[in-house]
């Protein structure tokens, strides 16, 4: 992880647009998940899908509205199972908790199953600094760990890497035989390289797709089987979860286990769903001796507190909104500059890392709403982006506006003009006079001043019409009545 770079969205997106290789990859690949999801929904029937979405949404709404109550219950039940719960208010505290557990158990090698929270808290460098080797075991995460990059996509972190990229990377890092050409051979090389680590690890670190308050259970959804290794082999198991991941009742999982894989990859179910309810019991043949659950706030309270933004915490991290977003499909995941890209990232990242750092992201959207359409929890992302934009523009929180002076002046000017029809009509005449040198047959091909010049880089701009509609109405249409 290379820190928070959300402010650079404009520059990073320009770079992405100019990157031919990336563009050709995005054009080729971004529809795949989308198509698979649609197919899975059709198979289930759209009506059934919408029923499930409504149920999922209702469960999440209830849980988040009463989150303190369910956190308390979860904590009780985890202890009843023989596990330990730790609470972290921010990344720093979360890192120190995991570090302390590793130190107390003398851990040297930690195998990790994909966890976005651990990306968020930059756990790996921290573990390295204290002499613990963290090994990502999800193939995609493993690749970006080797490459030292941030995830490109929530569920497919290394999707931007071609097989040639991966082959080169593996060769550089000595994974497998040199000069690997086939994807299967690369996956096999990674499997072989990781197998020894998986067996030898003394600590397992996982995220959590869901936590069940009723039974103190953590549920993990994976395809590779690495999640099962992390929860079965090492002596100590640590699961790290954002505090919003709770559902009240075990039976609620029946809803989410149908929603998540279909929305994410179009699978009817993932190959493995692992439910962990504490450490091994007396009489179990194997499994971790200790189970720790680390529950992280790290800015989630900012979303929780605002009734307009709370539903961002309903997110089950399926990535469907990324796949459907026309902006993400043009700029890719890295342009967003932090752990959570795409539409949901544009809401969550500024709240987690601070609106100051993330003020660009709510504007990284045409507000088309495709994200809301595909969201398995029907999260209204565009409405939240609008809300965040108002926080940026009006500086409702954290002292003052974040909008530029130019923008504020333009807004004031527009508002003033639109409140005064006579001034508007004069401005129009002025505009007609000013556009005269550049307008040809009703079109402006090259406007000399911003923001119009930015428009005409690639598009013609319609000129002000000879007469506005209101004149046509007065002169001709009103009398027809």
């Amino acid at each position, binding site marked *: 992880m290379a820190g928070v770079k959300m402010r650079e969205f404009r520059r990073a997106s320009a770079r992405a647009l100019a990157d031919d290789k990336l563009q050709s990859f995005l054009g080729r690949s971004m529809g795949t998940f989308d198509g698979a999801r649609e197919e899975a929904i059709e198979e289930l029937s759209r009506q059934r899908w919408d029923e499930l979405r409504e149920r999922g949404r209702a469960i999440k709404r209830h849980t988040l509205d009463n989150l303190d109550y369910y956190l308390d219950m979860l904590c009780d039940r985890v202890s009843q199972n023989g596990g330990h719960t730790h609470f972290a208010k921010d990344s720093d505290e979360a890192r120190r908790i995991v570090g302390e557990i590793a130190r107390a158990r003398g851990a040297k090698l930690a195998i990790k199953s994909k966890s976005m929270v651990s990306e968020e808290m930059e756990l790996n460098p921290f573990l390295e600094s204290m002499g613990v080797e963290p090994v990502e075991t999800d193939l995609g995460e493993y690749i970006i760990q080797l490459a030292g990059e941030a995830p490109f996509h929530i569920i497919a972190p290394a999707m931007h890497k071609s097989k040639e990229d991966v082959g080169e990377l593996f060769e550089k890092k000595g994974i497998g035989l040199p000069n690997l050409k086939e994807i299967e051979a690369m996956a096999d090389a990674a499997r072989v390289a990781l197998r020894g680590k998986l067996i030898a690890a003394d600590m397992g670190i996982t995220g959590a797709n869901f936590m069940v308050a009723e039974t103190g259970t953590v549920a993990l959804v994976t395809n590779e089987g690495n999640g099962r290794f992390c929860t079965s082999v090492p002596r100590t198991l640590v699961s790290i979860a954002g505090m919003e991941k709770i559902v009240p009742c075990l039976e609620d999982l029946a809803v989410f286990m149908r929603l998540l894989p279909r929305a994410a990859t179009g699978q009817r179910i993932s190959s493995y769903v692992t439910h962990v309810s504490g450490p091994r019991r007396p009489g179990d043949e194997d499994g971790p001796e200790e189970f720790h659950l680390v529950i992280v706030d790290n800015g989630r309270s900012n979303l929780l507190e605002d009734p307009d933004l709370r539903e961002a915490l309903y997110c089950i991290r399926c990535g469907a909104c990324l796949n459907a977003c026309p902006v993400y499909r043009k700029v890719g995941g890295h342009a967003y500059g932090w752990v959570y890209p795409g539409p949901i990232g544009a809401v969550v990242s500024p709240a987690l890392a601070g609106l100051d750092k993330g003020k660009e992201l709510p504007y990284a959207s045409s507000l088309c709403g495709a994200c809301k359409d595909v969201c398995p929890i029907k999260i209204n992302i565009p409405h939240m982006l609008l809300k965040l934009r108002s926080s940026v523009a009006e500086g409702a929180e954290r002292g003052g506006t974040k909008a530029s002076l130019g923008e504020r002046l333009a807004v004031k000017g527009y*508002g003033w003009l639109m409140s005064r029809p006579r001034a508007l009509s004069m401005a*129009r005449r002025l505009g007609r006079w000013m556009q005269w040198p550049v307008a040809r047959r009703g079109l402006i091909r090259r406007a000399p001043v911003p923001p119009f010049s930015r428009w005409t880089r690639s598009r013609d701009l319609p000129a002000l019409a000879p007469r506005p*509609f209101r004149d046509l109405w007065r002169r001709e249409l009103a009398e*027809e009545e």
Partner: protein
Amino acid sequence: MVGKARIRASLFVTCLVDQLFPRVGVGVVRALRSQGVSVDFPPDQTCCGQPLFNSGFRKEAAALARRTLKSFAHSDRVVVPSGSCASMMKVFYPDLFRDDPEWGPLARDLSGRVHEFSQFMVNVLGVTDVGAAYEGRVAYHPSCHLLRELGAVDEPVSLLNGVKGLERVELPEAGVCCGFGGGFSVKHAGISEAMLKDKVDNVVGTGARAVASCDAGCLMQIGGGLSRRGADVRAVHLAEILGGVA
């Protein structure tokens, strides 16, 4: 309309149509009158405030919203030839004034009286064939707000299907945004252009003579892209076709 009270509608023409595409307004008036609707045009209307609201300036947007609420306080129904402006008035005005004891009730009241043009034709008037004629192949681009805030999937299509001589062709990836997005089109011009390129490719690929939509913003974007490319395809508003002024 014999035997029925005449339906009255006020036109909110939107600032883009007023200033840039007045013919769209003419089309709306002609189409409505062809169905016996009595149309009026409150003269002090300007902008619904959407550009400011979408940029995050809610206070300034609210000022324009209050103006608009006043302009249409006495209208039976308000017809808007724009999915996004209609969304602003139907969906976001009540949100903007939700805690305002004075303007909140007015906003909620207007919300129920506002109709996007195609929805008004099909759902209020109950017509899909207005007797219009237009020769040639036409592709339909559903604008995002009309599609996703107002849920209009079939209305514009059935109106196009009712036009004599018009052959409707399917637009590939029709529901994908054209990249306009108001301020987005200049704030993130590069991304907007990239999205537009796909849309223009798809439109040109249909071999249509025109691409129809229900939002001046999309028409400005798609039309601007088509003419810059020198493509022989026009971007027209549905109302222009229905009103016989395309």
